[in-house]
Structures are given as structure tokens and as C-alpha cells.
């Protein structure tokens, strides 16, 4: 029987969001036209901003975070033809942005290294270290710049050997509006 593993901080949300958008993506579409990552991020952010008073700021923050997640799903999908699911959920005090996809084992290993450290250490220090090591900066940057909580769940390989990762970024609503 498969067991869900939590990496880093993965706070559960209240049952029903106040507002939400959810989209299915096929990663090969992103691989063949990279600007679609930005188009999806902008569209999802635009859809959500009427739920915020500081709309321009919210649009910029939500789009930036979503773009990072969508690019991750495209870069690290184990099977680029297998759909991924992206969502933004506004729960009032917090906003959850996440992407769920079938990921490569290499990507899962890098999340295993990064997310627990991000959950416990100072994001700025983690960012600085990764910059020095010339390793991926995106998630550490979100944690540093937006005070985001970044975590993931990993559903281990099924009979087909694939791993499903749900990568979640949690922002305070105040941070989304930079109040």
C-alpha cells in the first residue's frame, strides 16, 4: 500500500476555499512553447485578483509564484504527456498555490534535500548557499522574497514506477498584497 510522505512544511487548509481556480496542464505543451508557463500563471493570477483589494500587487505576486510552480512541473515531469494539475486557493488568511504532477526521481531527491532545510532554516541563508553552489534558486527565492511556506507530498511509485508530487506554496494573504 502506498504511503504519502510529507517534505518540508505542508500545512493543511480549511475545508472550503473562499475562491479557487484549478487547471489541468499537459507538460509537453509547455515544453514545446515555454511562454505558455507565463500565460497560465498570468491567467490564473488574473482570475484570482478580484478577491484582493491590492490587485496589481496581488497579480504580480500570484503570477510570479505560479510561474515558478508551472515551470517546475514542465521541467521535472517524468512523462511530459501525463497531465499535471495547477491550482490557486484563497482561504482568507492564507493562499495556497500548488502543482501536482508525476515527477522524476531526481526531482524528488532534490526536494527531499531542499524542503526540510527551507522549513527549518532562514530562507536567506538557504538562498545564499544555493547561489554559491549554483543550484536551483526558484523555491528558495519564493521563501525568501515572500515569506512563503514551501512543502510537498510525495506519493510513492505505483506499479508503473511513477511518483506523484504535490508541491505547495503557502502565502499569507497580507503578503500577497504586500501590506
Amino acid at each position: 500500500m502506498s504511503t504519502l510522505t510529507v517534505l518540508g512544511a505542508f500545512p493543511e487548509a480549511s475545508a472550503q476555499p473562499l475562491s479557487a481556480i484549478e487547471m489541468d496542464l499537459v507538460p509537453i505543451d509547455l515544453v514545446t512553447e515555454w511562454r505558455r508557463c507565463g500565460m497560465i500563471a498570468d491567467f490564473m493570477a488574473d482570475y484570482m485578483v478580484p478577491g484582493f483589494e491590492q490587485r496589481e500587487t496581488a497579480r504580480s505576486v500570484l503570477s510570479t509564484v505560479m510561474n515558478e510552480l508551472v515551470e517546475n512541473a514542465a521541467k521535472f515531469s517524468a512523462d511530459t504527456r501525463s497531465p499535471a494539475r495547477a491550482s490557486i486557493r484563497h482561504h482568507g488568511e492564507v493562499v495556497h498555490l500548488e502543482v501536482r504532477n508525476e515527477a522524476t526521481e531526481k526531482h524528488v531527491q532534490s526536494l527531499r534535500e531542499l524542503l526540510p532545510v527551507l522549513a527549518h532554516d532562514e530562507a536567506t541563508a538557504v538562498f545564499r548557499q544555493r547561489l554559491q553552489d549554483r543550484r536551483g534558486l526558484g523555491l528558495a527565492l519564493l521563501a525568501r522574497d515572500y515569506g512563503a511556506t514551501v512543502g510537498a507530498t510525495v506519493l510513492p511509485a505505483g506499479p508503473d514506477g511513477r511518483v506523484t508530487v504535490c508541491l505547495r506554496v503557502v502565502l499569507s494573504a497580507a503578503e500577497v498584497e504586500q501590506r
Partner: protein
Amino acid sequence: MRLRLEIAARSADVLRCRQLVGEVYHRRYGVVFSSDTYDLDRKIEPWPHRFLMGFLKDELAAVSGLYLRNTYVERFGGVTDDEIGAHLREAGLEGRYDPAARRELTKLVIAPRLRNSGLGPLFVAIAHARAFVELDAALPPLVTFCVVRSMRRLVERHGIRPRHLKPFPHYKVHELYRSERNPMDSYLVIPELDVPAAFRDLRIPGEHELSPWQGDER
């Protein structure tokens, strides 16, 4: 093996070509594509303008792209019209070709299940057919491409004689393709001298009986 050759014309054909190229390049080299931008350090590549498709029965088995302008060797390889002109002079063909009228073979992929079947280098040779590289050209263009040396050797087995232009500069986008032991270079092909008639006159669209060599691809 009978290989059916077609030039992608319908939107669905172009989409299938892009998806096969995207899938293979992403899996093997971590590369993504864009119609309106490129950034070799971020591994974002520009799409070719045309595609040649090779089918085994109904399976899209091989794809080769073609840049009609803004070739890779001039944009990223630093190859100039003067350098091309010098090669034409050396070949005794000054005035016969416009050094700036170049097209470039690029983004060759073979369906993953056929990798190392020898179809890759063979398809590079096939893609030199005038029915593909010269289509809609006012005058016969020169052909360029950039590949690693192991690939050049495999292509040469089919009688193509690429002329070495210069080493290709290092970009992050090629970090998983080239190596110290297998460097990447820019090449020029003068079709009338360097391409055997069997490939130059290949009928496209058409179906052909072909015996591929064993080897690597791209």
C-alpha cells in the same frame, strides 16, 4: 524497411513534429522551445521553420527540422558570410552560390524506441534531399548544421561530406549533448559537391526502401 517521407504541412503534422522533438530534447537534454524567444543559457531553443517527417507504417519515426533563415551557425556559432565565401572559393564555386543564402538542418530526433537503430544519421543524409532543403528557394541554398564529431562520422558513412567551418562555442543548452571528448562544430555542405545523388534526388513525398546503419542519432 520502408520509410515514408513527407514535409509537415498541416497544423496537426507540425504539432506532432514539435511534440516528438520537444519530448526527446526535454528528456535527454533538458531543453524547452519557444516560437518567439530563445535563451541558450536558460535552455530555451528557437523552433525550426519546417519539418521533414519519416514514417514507419503509421508511426512518426524520425523528424528533421530546417531553419530557412537565422541559422544556428550564424546566430550562435559566429560563422560569417565571408567564411562561407572562402569555402566556396576554395571549392572553385565562387559566384555559383550566394554565401548568405543558407538553410540549416536542425533538431533531428528519432522516436525513442528506435534510438541507436542507425536511423538518426541516415535521416540526416535523407534530409539533404533537394525536395526538402531547396523547397520554395529562389536559388539552391547552401546547407549548414552543427553536430558533435561522432555524429559527423556517422553521417559521413552515408556519403555526405560536411566541410568543417569552426568549433561551436560553449552554451549551457548543449551541456548534456557535447563533451570534451566529443566536441561540437559548425559544418557547411555544398549540395552539388557534398551530397550523393541518391539522397539529393530523393523523392519527397514518397516511400523508400532503406537500409539504415547502426549508430547514434541527433
